[in-house]
């Protein structure tokens, strides 16, 4: 059934549409302008492309990586490390947060440890990680988990603790067990926080994996960046960074998609 809108409402919708088009035009315009300027100043020789690289040189570098078959290999290595680290950090973080919510005493006991672990710059553990896990992907995954797990734990614990006291009282008056309170109320009401935690942890996972690759690696995008820096191939550094931007954005949008799938029920 097609709804009949008044003339005024049609004009309102058209105005909304126009505004959105302007926003998108500006977004794309800024990107084109920046890339164009970058290309121009290097082509005209105003700055040395050896130091700044340029969009065309980045394109050529990516093309040559693709041609010698290493492009998807490096992307694959980093992507896999990031995803595995992300999943482990999120899963463990949620489980720990649940345990801490369940036991007030456990929470009190572990509080100072969590605070210290949260404040500690994880990169300080670099040498230890190399010694314990060697120089393979395990070390990088471990670094990724380390960076993400505390954030996931604290975020979810906050969400669990913020459950409405009156709703808990209501369930208790129905004779609910602690497990029922958890499954019927605490977990479902924490769903929006879970999504926002995922969004934060996407960023954390990339920090962890790239940081890990800086410390130890023989492949991956972080490896390309470090290697490119050491041999002064800034084209390679810029290319890997661009690919990272695209991958990180892609992963973020996957979470947004997940959010739309899960949360649509409640907002209907």
């Amino acid at each position, binding site marked *: 059934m097609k709804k009949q809108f008044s003339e005024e409402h049609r004009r309102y919708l058209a105005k909304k549409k126009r505004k959105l088009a302007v926003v998108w035009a500006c977004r794309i315009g800024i990107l084109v302008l920046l890339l164009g300027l970058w290309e121009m100043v290097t082509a005209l020789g105003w700055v040395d492309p050896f130091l700044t690289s340029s969009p065309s040189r980045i394109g050529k570098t990516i093309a040559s990586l693709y041609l010698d078959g290493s492009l998807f290999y490096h992307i694959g290595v980093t992507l896999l490390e990031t995803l595995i680290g992300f999943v482990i950090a999120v899963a463990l973080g949620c489980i720990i947060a649940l345990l801490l919510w369940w036991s007030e005493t456990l929470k009190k006991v572990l509080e100072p440890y969590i605070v210290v672990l949260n404040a500690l710059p994880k990169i300080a553990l670099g040498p230890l990680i190399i010694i314990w896990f060697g120089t393979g992907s395990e070390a990088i995954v471990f670094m990724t988990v380390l960076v993400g797990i505390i954030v996931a734990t604290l975020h979810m614990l906050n969400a669990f603790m913020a459950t409405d006291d*009156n709703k808990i009282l209501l369930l208790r008056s129905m*004779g609910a067990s602690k497990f029922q309170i958890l499954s019927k109320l605490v977990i479902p009401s924490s769903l929006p926080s879970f999504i926002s935690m995922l969004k934060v942890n996407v960023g954390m996972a990339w920090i962890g994996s790239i940081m890990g690759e800086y410390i130890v690696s023989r492949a991956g995008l972080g490896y390309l960046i470090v290697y490119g820096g050491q041999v002064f191939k800034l084209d390679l550094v810029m290319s890997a960074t661009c690919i990272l931007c695209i991958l990180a954005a892609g992963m973020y949008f996957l979470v947004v998609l997940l959010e739309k799938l899960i949360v649509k029920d409640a907002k209907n």
Partner: protein
Amino acid sequence: MKNEILRFENVTLTYHTKRGETTATDALTFSVREGEFVAVIGPSGCGKTTVLSLAAGLLTPSSGEVTRRGSCGYMLQKDELFPWRTIEKNIFLPLEIKRQNTAERRERAIGLAKKYGLGDFLLSYPPQLSGGMRQRAALIRTLATEPDILLLDEPFSALDYQTRLNVCEDVSSIIRSEEKTAILITHDISEAVSLADRIIVLTKRPARVAFEHELDFGDENRPIKRREKPQFSAWFEILWKELNT
């Protein structure tokens, strides 16, 4: 005279916090008979909610005894409907909790919802309903497990005045026609007079029974009609004085 369904016998309750202890109720003694609608009023902060928590068995008295025959259902100030559940699923919640989620019980609950005007909204989510309808849904949820006693903790105070009068009317007629025993906690004198068969006035903290009144409205149970009767203002005045001594 009908059977006693709830009895408080010298009930004293002390709250303990780091800073010290507070006595909320002091040797509180009263009883509620089956099918009766009792309103409990008192100065604000006198421990009215504590009385309901004791009746519900959520708190254990420091001394004295609370005896209750049968199950109870609790209704709070706000509807506390879960926004991620449909109205229907919200009404089934206590059935799930009490593991009574049978087709028969569900059907009965849906029957109640339909009878009291929520039939078209069973598959809606709480934010789509008005405040009054949400509170009605909360009452149906409370009735779903067929409790013997209803504990009402200022269930109208979060509503605006117009809605409050209407919901008061609805809740009263639902409780009367389902022949439930109810205890209403409120600080609103006119609400107590328009709803109850009997009113218990509590003292300031620690709460004790200061006065008890059997109301004389006869068979008139409709809150709006009661508000028009001459006794209404007389009772209001009496209770007002008692609360302010």
